[in-house]
């Protein structure tokens, strides 16, 4: 009996050496389990590093679900299907665009400001590249990052942007804006030359997403009735706190991949120890963000607003993302806690500016992202506040301006916003055609 080779069937089995639960079997297959001939013995470091990317990659991929749930919970029930749809679509677009052009633009042959315009591919099946890890695993890991940036935009602009204009922007963001900006630092471009430091992307991922969202929010305007005639804020509570909390926990889990695998290696004792440090610090910062928001809302508002606490967790995570390795546990907590404080104070601030950010993505990702990037020199002696500042400004200006232009073009060509009537009836009826909760009578007052 010959077992199918790996390529033919994808299966082999050690059934032949199986030990039976109750009795020995009369005969075993004799010739089973000839191990597929290995061209060369594996290099553990190569495998460990690749595994780190794969594990980190699937954890960050899972964050796509986290954003989807968080946003579905923070919008009104009449817009839930739309928000879900946007999230699964943007993740898919990010995956395709980052293959079609993004990865090469960010990492291949970067001239200081951008790389190469070409689809990216990997070694043939059955072969491995030289180097420290399999490039396909790196592509996978980098790809899920770009999806994260796009998710941020989706949350801010919820409940009033049309589907297709949003998706067009996602194409540009994930195929061009993010990769070009990313090449400056992670692609080895000018900012990295200068000594800018952003370990896992407080600025490169989170602030970039936040700036793109801000540009969109300014152009799109607030949801109808979000701000009253006398300028007062009229809160629009999210429809499902259970989903919002689930989304936050998913993001928290995914962040271990986001920060941990940004170590980029675990083939040595010190690398895997660093990954461990990063896991611990990431968790401590998130916890710091939660507890800060918890205590602060109790003091300021006399009740604990769960949405602030959820935002606090995420702001803690974003804050530590620029430097999850160097801080001591205590510093990690402090950095995260300041993220939580930022949320509680900047969410109302944005409202005062009449910038309507449905899920609080700008405070969480942009402002806490800036904080996290600024805070790097506090614990990393190889960095300087000056260069960090230059990096933050460079990313801000580039992303904001380009995004604004792209949003303006889209607005001019196909329009951005649903009609007032469609906004009222809900985007699910207007654009998706399938209500999220068709059987439940929702309070349709707003």
């Amino acid at each position: 009996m010959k077992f199918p080779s790996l390529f033919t069937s994808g299966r082999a089995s050690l059934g032949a050496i199986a030990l039976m639960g109750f009795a020995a079997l009369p005969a075993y297959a004799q010739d089973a389990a000839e191990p597929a001939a290995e061209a060369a013995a594996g290099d553990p470091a190569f495998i460990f590093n690749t595994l780190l990317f794969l594990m980190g990659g699937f954890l960050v991929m899972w964050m796509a679900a986290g954003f989807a749930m968080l946003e579905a919970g923070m919008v009104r029930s009449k817009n839930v299907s739309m928000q879900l749809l946007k999230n699964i679509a943007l993740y898919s677009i990010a995956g395709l665009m980052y293959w079609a052009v993004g990865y090469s633009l960010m990492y291949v042959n970067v001239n200081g400001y951008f790389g190469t315009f070409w689809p990216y591919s990997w070694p043939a099946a059955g072969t491995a590249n030289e180097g420290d890890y399999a490039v396909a695993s790196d592509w996978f890991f980098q790809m899920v990052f770009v999806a994260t940036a796009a998710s941020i935009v989706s949350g801010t602009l919820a409940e009033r942007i049309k589907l297709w204009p949003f998706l067009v922007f996602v194409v540009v963001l994930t195929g061009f804006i993010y990769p070009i900006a990313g090449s400056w630092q992670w692609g080895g471009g000018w900012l990295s030359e200068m000594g800018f430091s952003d370990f896992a992307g407080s600025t490169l991922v989170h602030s970039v997403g936040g700036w793109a969202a801000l540009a969109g929010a300014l152009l799109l305007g607030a949801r109808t009735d979000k701000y009253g005639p006398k300028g007062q804020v009229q809160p629009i509570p999210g429809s499902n706190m259970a989903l919002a909390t689930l989304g936050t926990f998913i993001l928290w889990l995914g962040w271990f991949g986001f920060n941990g695998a940004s170590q980029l290696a675990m083939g040595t004792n010190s690398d895997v120890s660093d990954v461990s440090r990063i896991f611990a610090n990431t968790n401590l910062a998130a916890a710091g963000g939660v507890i800060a928001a918890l205590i602060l809302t109790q003091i300021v508002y006399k009740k604990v607003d769960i949405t602030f606490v959820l935002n606090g967790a995420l702001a803690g995570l974003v804050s530590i993302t620029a430097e999850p390795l160097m801080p001591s546990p205590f510093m990690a907590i402090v950095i995260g806690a300041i993220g939580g404080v930022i949320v509680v104070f900047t969410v109302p601030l944005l409202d005062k500016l009449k910038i309507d950010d449905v899920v609080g993505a700008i405070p969480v990702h942009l402002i806490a992202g800036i904080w996290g990037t600024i805070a790097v020199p506090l614990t990393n002696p190889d960095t300087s506040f000056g260069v960090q500042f230059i990096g933050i400004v460079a990313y801000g200006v580039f992303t904001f301006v380009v995004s604004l232009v792209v949003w303006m073009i889209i607005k001019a060509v196909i329009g951005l916003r649903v009609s007032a009537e469609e906004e009222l009836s809900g985007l699910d009826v207007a654009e998706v055609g399938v209500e999220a909760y068709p059987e439940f009578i929702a309070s349709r007052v707003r």
Partner: protein
Amino acid sequence: MKFVMAIIKPFKLEAVREALTELGIQGLTVTEVKGFGRQKGHTEIYRGAEYAVSFLPKVKVEVAVDSDMADKVVEAIATAAKTGQIGDGKIFVHSIDKAVRIRTGETDTDAL
């Protein structure tokens, strides 16, 4: 025949149903509603902004009864639903011309 409609506090529903059952009432219909009244709602803060929740959850109980039962029914509801606190609700009574039991086609008092 009379039609008695009561707006009560939700947690009083069971007590009201029992009181009516004791009176021999065999059927009633219940609707979840929201009430606005002297009992003020509360102010909530969501993401740092205050807003008034002016509508409070209430339950509407509707019973069609023979005219001479009406007063007893009103009284029974009023007693069972009372907490003495603001927001206990209201009872309204109006006359109906006709009642039909769909299953049998019986009408008026027989239909109740």
